[in-house]
């Protein structure tokens, strides 16, 4: 059930050392207002699960610059030089995961699966340290589920029950992360009344969402 909070209250739910999932693809579809508020807190040592570390001035990239992260599970850090610098200096632990595998691991976490078998990464370093399972003579990597303490999402519209719709490529990882965290907070561009979103058009059912931040009010 969605309960409206302001960005500061939302940021306050993120505590030192927590694992946080954050929507966005190169910063598109990231909860910028909540990130603004996070930057005002003293929170630190976060483990962040995110598609990429975006840019220094956008999305999760701003948390990298501000030294909020101890560890990041991601598919790409190439657009943020600070991610690279902090990885090289040992300040930031970076775990690289193929993008489709990352998506399935998050979905598995939300869907109560013990893991999925993926062919992606077989014959590459991505299989190192992973359990390999053969099915019908073909090797697959066992990708384990990922879950988080908090998911920080961005949606286009949300109703007061937490039902969400997204816009264009700003959808990306947001809907699967909505399923995989203990506390789910969605920043919406527009807060609408219950019943204003047609049930057929809901992408994230409200039952996954704990709190809404009205992006217009911040």
């Amino acid at each position, binding site marked *: 059930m969605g309960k409206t909070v302001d960005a500061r209250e939302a940021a306050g739910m993120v505590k030192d050392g927590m694992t946080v999932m954050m929507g966005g693809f190169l910063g598109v579809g990231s909860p910028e207002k909540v990130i603004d508020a996070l930057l005002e807190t003293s929170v630190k040592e976060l483990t962040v699960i995110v598609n990429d570390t975006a840019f220094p001035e956008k999305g999760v990239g701003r948390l990298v610059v501000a030294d909020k992260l101890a560890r990041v599970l991601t598919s790409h850090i190439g657009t943020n030089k600070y991610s690279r610098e902090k990885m090289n200096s040992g300040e930031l632990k970076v775990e690289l995961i193929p993008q489709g595998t990352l998506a399935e691991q998050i979905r598995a976490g*939300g869907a109560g699966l013990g893991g999925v078998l993926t062919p992606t990464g077989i014959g590459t370093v991505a299989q190192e340290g992973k359990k390999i399972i053969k099915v019908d003579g073909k090797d697959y990597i066992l990708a384990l589920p990922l879950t988080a303490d908090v998911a920080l999402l961005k949606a286009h519209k949300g109703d007061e029950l937490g*039902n969400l719709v997204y816009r264009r490529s700003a959808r990306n990882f947001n809907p699967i992360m909505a*399923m995989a965290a203990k506390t789910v907070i969605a920043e919406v561009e527009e807060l609408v009344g219950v019943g204003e979103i047609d049930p057929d058009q809901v992408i994230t*059912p409200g039952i996954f969402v704990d709190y809404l931040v009205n992006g217009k009010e911040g």
Partner: protein
Amino acid sequence: MEKVDKRNLIARRIAGEFKENDVVNLGIGLPTLVANYIEEGKNIILHSENGFTGVGMPPASGEEDPDITNAGGQPVTIVPGGACFDSAMSFAIIRGGHVDATVLGALEVDAEGNLANWMIPGKLVPGMGGAMDLVSGAKKVIIATDHCTKAGAPKILKRCQLPLTAAKEVDLIVTELAVMKVTEDGLVLQEIAEDTTVEEVQAKTDAELIIPHEIGVLK
């Protein structure tokens, strides 16, 4: 008690178990009656495994929408704020622990929390449908059942004899005679109906009941 009263007693008692904002899935038959007793202020959201949240009351006769049925195929409605999804999402919700409580019937249920409610070998093999997922995935599994079979045999056993729906997942059993909680040590008798006794309940129960000092009234 008349049968209809017994069923309503069970349904009403179970509705009291839900907490505010709970997501609840009600099985077919007796469990469906529970919806009639849910307090409106609690904001309970009903999940239907055929693919939506926000199950509403049955429509008036003639107002049925063929595309809106519950998991038993009965016409229902979708309340404002409902959401539709496909079967993979529906069971991701169930298996992923996003359903706070499910209410299901039983052929047999036992002292370890095992449940058998989907087949009788050689006689009735309808299939498990979504029951195995519901029982193993929902956070709280509540069984709504007559205390005994029509023939008067106990349904609450030391150990289920029929093929299981899930192992050790049941949390609470509510019958027309009693409310029993499944614990590590066995079934604790929490409440009994006004017109019965602890002795009668135990006599009609194959599993040995743990009898606490205080027992509430099932009403």
